[in-house]
């Protein structure tokens, strides 16, 4: 496939892109280099954080609400096993409601293939075997990378106007009718094309806002609240989240919500075209196909 024209050095997302020579397609610069670096560092860091986090969770596969919580206290969520030692049955219990989850949660194939009593399965954890010390090394090393990456991206986004121009929704976009219209279109897998694809639509904006300014900072703060050292330095964190064990539960739930975002994000990628989107996140270049050539 040959590229048509390219807009050199245009602002991102480039509104002033050049029209291709009669082909009805043009190439614009879609993503800033800061966005692209942040995206890929995040992919690596968040994957490692999630998988090492599941290994850490497996050391005590129960979540509580409040300041304390251990074996004899009532869990908010538990992944466990019951039955005989030869034939353990896995279960997940959320607020007293128990469902059988053998094969995935509670009991699943260990690294050698035999059934093993473990919260999350070996294929989802880093390392794949139970090893709290090693999982913590991965987790805290990549937590620093993740935090540095987030801080740099937030600083860049505030300075270069990325958040103000590209991500903050305009008032007219937030009208219920406009929102409903976008939701309806998305549900029917009808996505903006042509000119409209130059900008993030309002649902994208809200999703990115939620992830960048709510979910990711919450991961950092709830993570820090689990640290006895940070709790001494910033006891207000305990009040904000209602205790160390609540913070641990929220850390887990918000991680789940980020995973949910990633699933939708990947589904949208498949729906609108993998290669164009991937390229725009690697090189910054994005091809616009116009409904009516100008």
């Amino acid at each position: 496939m040959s590229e048509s024209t390219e807009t050199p050095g245009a602002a991102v997302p480039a509104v002033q892109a050049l029209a291709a020579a009669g082909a009805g397609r043009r190439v614009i610069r879609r993503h800033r280099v800061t966005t692209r670096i942040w995206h890929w560092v995040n992919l690596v860091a968040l994957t490692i954080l999630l998988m090492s986090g599941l290994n850490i969770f497996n050391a005590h596969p129960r979540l509580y609400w409040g300041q304390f919580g251990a074996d004899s206290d009532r869990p908010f969520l538990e992944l466990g096993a019951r039955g005989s030692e030869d034939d353990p049955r896995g279960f997940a219990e959320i607020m007293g409601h128990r469902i059988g989850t053998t094969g995935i949660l509670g009991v699943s194939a260990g690294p050698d293939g035999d059934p093993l009593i473990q919260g999350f399965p070996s294929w989802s954890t880093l390392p794949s075997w139970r090893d709290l010390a090693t999982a913590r090394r991965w987790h805290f090393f990549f937590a620093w990378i993740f935090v540095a990456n987030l801080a740099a991206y937030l600083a860049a986004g505030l300075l270069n106007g990325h958040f103000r121009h590209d991500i903050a929704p305009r008032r007219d976009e937030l009208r219920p009718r406009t929102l409903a219209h976008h939701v309806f279109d998305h549900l029917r897998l009808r996505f903006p094309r042509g000119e409209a694809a130059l900008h993030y639509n309002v649902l994208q904006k809200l999703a990115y806002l939620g992830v960048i300014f709510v979910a990711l900072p919450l991961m950092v703060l709830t993570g820090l609240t689990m640290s006895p050292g940070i709790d001494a330095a910033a006891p207000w964190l305990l009040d904000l989240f209602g205790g160390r064990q609540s913070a641990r539960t929220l850390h887990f739930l918000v991680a789940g919500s980020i995973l949910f975002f990633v699933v939708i994000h990947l589904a949208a990628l498949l729906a609108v075209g993998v290669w164009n989107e991937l390229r725009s996140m690697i090189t910054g270049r994005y091809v616009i196909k116009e409904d009516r050539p100008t």
Partner: protein
Amino acid sequence: MSAPSGPGLHRRRFLLSGGSALLGGAGLLLSGCDRASEAPAFRDLLGRAEGLTRTSQRLLQGRSALAREFAAADISPEFKANGTIEPDTDIYAALLDDGFADWRLQIDGLVDRPAALSLAELRSLPSRTQITRHDCVEGWSAIGKWTGVPLGLLLKSAGLKPNARYAVFHCADDLDGEAGKGGEQSPGLYYESIDLIDAFHPQTILAYDMNDAPLPVAHGAPLRLRVERQLGYKHAKYLMRIEIAERLDHLGRGKGGYWEDRGYEWYAGI
């Protein structure tokens, strides 16, 4: 939407093979991560984060920021006992048999005046009582009430030599590892160490009472360390001896503690 056509099918197959290539690639990466997890040089690299964590936490805390203290109503109904529940050595059994009457806490190493203190002597010294949260590295927490002698007080009266840097806690228990933690499971004598910033922290005490009763065996009788701004494994139980040292590399495998020798952080503020 158009019905599946030739190019559509083509594209689907392309996506499918792309997808399985991605999955295969991810599998390779993960087995690579597993192998990296076992490579000493890579483990050391990951472990570098600990220094950054310690420096930044100490910066944020200052020397004397206190761990939160709770009300009596917040105390856990049942405080989970972890690690060794009862040391199985003859020496400990004999001490326990006569109610720790013959037990002495040795304080030696880089001090001007080594000491051997009985439980009665420790109880006669000024004490501190605090209701604090105990955070296990595994993830659970329990709140308990502790009474004991501030460690700083003992160290001041022993007199530290100028090159003193660490307080090392030698314990009565042999630990065989803990299945729940995974990783290396190997026996060894329990020991721990903290630096002088934590040793002189006002909440760092040698506790002989827990929840207004003598410290139970499961929680480290007759004496255990409380170092409230760090995780549970730092709170050494069954204390026998405090050694003031300049370095840690001559002890155990040289990492400053039983769990540290098995891959855990020496600075356990996180």
